[in-house]
């Protein structure tokens, strides 16, 4: 296996005494290509070098990517297992930690049944590890309760794509084609801050005249450069999409032939969009009629368009509906399955795509199989070497696991690669639930806010100390290379799951000596499923700059463009969405008159466990803030930098006001990367989408006053 991958003629700077190892960023779904600089003598990670020839990102990185390597040899790494004794963490040996876990897991299961244990996973891990989390929960622990932080991230996109297209692949087209697109319709995505390296493709297209329409309550750096900024109210995406489709139908922009040949439900859709006149849409969304019409015309007249969205539309009680409706916009224009056009969601976590496909979800099994399908259970059981009857039933979604804790059904939890103490909505409830647990284990490499609730903390490696594959936001499977040996006594997540499995008497199901062995089993487990990785090998990834799933055999070229001939539904036709208007779970009132919405800043990633420990990033953005319009600030006599008190029905906080005209006058924005008293998720709403069980992070009613 080559460590340094570079194309002929591409120059990189090689420092003396150092080697370059080719890998990808550990943070978002862009998975930007990079080379890590390693000191040959000490084996330590010392820096980063752009990977100019990675076809998706061309050497470009955001500040998180540039500084990602700094988390590896970081002074705050947890280097030994920690056991809480008298409220304090004490370093221990692996033996002692595993003894304690075994004793408690066995005691709890014998007293309360198998399902009293639970696993809370994450998708900032390789496919190999994500795959193993589901197997670990179901085979090693024998519990039905496993779910993961993708519920707070990608589950609505997954639900919407399944409904309309029959397969959930984040993007129906490969990213380099974006250069040839004529129009981008982007909803609820602050691409410039959350997936910055995409912007280069948008500019390439715009240099040729492409148009950009951005729907966002804030004039983000992405909206600022748009041709039309649809400044909608948070939580009104379904109205906006319906309004757009009303105009597409009315003005004759529908590709009737495509819809006729490839889509169901057109008549129902036409019926349901009828009432969404520009006037009515404007009333619901707060966007002017003029802008709506302008956007629909630009979008409707563009020969090649891509509809793109992200958490802004997905983290809502109607997330699945929003995704289905926006996807239908692309379908009406006949765009899906063609060159430089289609639909895409911006995957938030590094492996948010791969990690959601292979059985970390409460109701899913590898290869996007379903646990309520006996055939699927039979196949996966055969790969795992268990009897189908031994396969636990479906569990519940991430947030609902905390309900189960409150009710005493779940007594112990193993959190792997996640920090729900910061990232779950309604924090106070989450913290209270952690306190109610009998026993809690967390695997992490920094002492996160979640770790603090644990009885045992197991030190894991960072992404740079292990190898494997991830699947980027396009659906391209790529290679993560091992850059250095594990720091201190840390172990990889897969070794930890393996060790606990052995303690639970299930070691024979986890016989792996190295990562490629897990990958081989995983390929097989995905074989024949919707997300089929069987034909993808490490070798091919290296030679072909990654391989797109589905790829059922080694001689299959992979699938950069999805749905060219038919969709993944039973009848091969796409299902257009006919969905009416529904209010968000919480609306403003006289008592809570302002809409609170949350999101990211470019300098931080998710719960901030890593980026808050990176000096450059903390210098740029050390604390959360409440962004508001000067008109609102004036009403509450706030000056820039004043402390403001925010309160919703669930919690409150104090943060500094940051004043700009680049936000709606009736909205406040607070980024969510901080914990404890600085966590805006104390205030956010847990109203769940009925299908995806995604909480409504994006809309809450809040009242404010000067602190």
């Amino acid at each position, binding site marked *: 296996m080559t460590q340094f991958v570079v194309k002929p003629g591409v*120059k990189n700077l090689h420092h003396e005494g150092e080697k370059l190892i080719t890998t990808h960023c550990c943070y978002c779904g862009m998975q930007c290509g990079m080379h890590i600089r390693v000191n040959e003598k000490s084996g330590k990670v010392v820096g980063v070098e752009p990977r100019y020839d990675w076809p998706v990102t061309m050497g470009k990185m955001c500040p998180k990517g540039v500084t990602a390597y700094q988390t590896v040899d970081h002074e705050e790494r947890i280097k030994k297992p920690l056991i809480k004794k008298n409220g304090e963490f004490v370093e221990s040996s692996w033996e002692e930690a595993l003894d304690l876990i075994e004793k408690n897991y066995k005691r709890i299961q014998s007293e309360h049944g198998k399902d009293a244990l639970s696993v809370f996973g994450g998708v900032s891990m390789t496919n190999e590890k994500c795959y193993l989390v589901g197997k670990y929960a179901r085979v090693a622990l024998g519990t039905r309760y496993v779910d993961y932080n993708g519920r707070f991230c990608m589950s609505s996109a997954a639900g919407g794509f399944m409904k309309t297209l029959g397969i959930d692949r984040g993007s129906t087209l490969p990213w380099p084609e974006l250069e040839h697109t004529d129009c981008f319709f982007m909803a609820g995505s602050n691409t410039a801050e959350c997936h910055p390296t995409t912007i280069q493709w948008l500019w390439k297209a715009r240099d040729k005249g492409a148009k950009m329409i951005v729907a966002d309550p804030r004039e983000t750096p992405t909206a600022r450069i748009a041709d039309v900024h649809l400044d909608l109210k948070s939580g009104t995406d379904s109205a906006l999409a319906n309004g757009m489709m009303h105009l597409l139908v009315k003005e004759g922009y529908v590709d009737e032939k495509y819809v006729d040949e490839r889509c169901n439900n057109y008549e129902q859709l036409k019926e349901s969009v009828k009432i969404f006149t520009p006037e009515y849409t404007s009333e619901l969304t707060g966007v002017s009629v003029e802008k709506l019409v302008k956007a629909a015309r630009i979008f409707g007249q563009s020969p090649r368009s891509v509809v793109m969205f992200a958490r802004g539309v997905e983290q809502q009680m109607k997330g699945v509906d929003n995704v289905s409706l926006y996807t239908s916009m692309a379908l009406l224009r006949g765009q899906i399955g063609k060159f430089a056009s289609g639909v895409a969601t911006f995957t938030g976590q590094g492996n948010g795509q791969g990690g959601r496909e292979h059985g970390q979800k409460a109701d899913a099994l590898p290869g996007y199989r379903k646990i309520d399908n006996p055939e699927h259970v039979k196949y996966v059981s055969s790969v795992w070497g268990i009897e189908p009857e031994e396969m636990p039933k479906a569990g519940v979604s991430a947030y609902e696991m905390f309900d189960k804790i409150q009710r005493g059904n779940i007594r112990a939890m193993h959190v792997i690669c996640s920090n729900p103490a910061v990232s779950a909505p309604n924090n106070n409830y989450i913290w209270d639930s952690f306190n109610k647990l009998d026993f809690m284990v967390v695997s992490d490499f920094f002492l996160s806010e979640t770790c603090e609730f644990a009885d045992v903390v197991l030190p894991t490696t960072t992404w740079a100390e292990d190898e494997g594959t991830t699947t980027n936001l396009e659906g391209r499977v790529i290679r993560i290379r091992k850059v250095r040996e594990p720091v201190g006594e840390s172990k990889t997540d897969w070794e930890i799951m393996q060790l606990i499995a052995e303690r639970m008497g299930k070691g024979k199901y986890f016989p792996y000596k190295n990562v490629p062995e897990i990958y081989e089993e995983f390929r097989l487990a995905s074989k024949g499923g919707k997300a089929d990785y069987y034909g993808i090998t490490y070798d091919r990834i290296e030679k072909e700059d990654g391989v797109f799933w589905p790829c059922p055999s080694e001689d299959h070229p992979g699938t950069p463009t999805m749905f060219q001939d038919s969709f993944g539904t039973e009848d091969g036709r796409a299902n257009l969405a006919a969905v009416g208007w529904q209010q968000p779970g919480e609306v403003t009132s006289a008592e809570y008159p302002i809409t609170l919405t949350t999101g990211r800043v470019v300098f931080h990633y998710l719960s901030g466990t890593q980026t808050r420990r990176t000096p450059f990033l903390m210098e740029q953005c050390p604390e959360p803030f409440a962004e508001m319009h000067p008109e609102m600030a004036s009403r509450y006599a706030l000056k820039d930098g004043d402390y403001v008190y925010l309160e919703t029905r669930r919690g409150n906080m104090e943060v500094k006001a940051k004043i700009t005209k680049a936000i709606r006058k009736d909205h406040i924005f607070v980024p969510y990367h901080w914990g404890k008293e600085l966590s805006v998720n104390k205030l956010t709403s847990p109203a769940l989408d009925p299908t995806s069980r995604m909480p409504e992070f994006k809309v809450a009613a809040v009242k404010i006053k000067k602190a």
Partner: protein
Amino acid sequence: MNKVMYLEFERCIGCRACQAACRECGGHDAKERNYVEYVNFFENRQTYPMMCMQCKDPACAKVCPANAIQITEEGVVLSAMEDKCIGCRNCTFGCPFGIPKFDFEENKMYKCDMCYDRTKHDISPMCASVCPSDAIRFIDHDEMMDLRRRRTQMNLIEGKKPSENDKWEYVPEFFGVYSD
């Protein structure tokens, strides 16, 4: 050096990857030499990067009484030589762009050297390498001239104000910086 730095201010998305990357350059001592500023955050989020223009007859070097600021044969204006710099900070006042920075602890000046360790091998500087928005580029002179003409064409076809946001009011659209 056959390439030029090419800036398109309007493209800057304020991510500051260029600053993070500047710290990564060999010999930069983890201190960035470039700037990214908001034009006026109250109004909108337009930002712009600023780095050394590698002036032909640089003011910083001219006002240096110790002759500490060297210019390479390619025309790159380097940081003051440590053994010559007397810490008078004339350069920080002399530069019309405010580029040279002064390290009070170490008592020395440091500035953007166009990543000379990279650019002398025709490898792109760190900021231009990573800038995700192509606001900073390191390209052939011909490509730059071509880009400038093409941008003007686009403006003629599309009109000066393609967007409802009055982004054009805030910053000049682009300019090229020559290194030779």
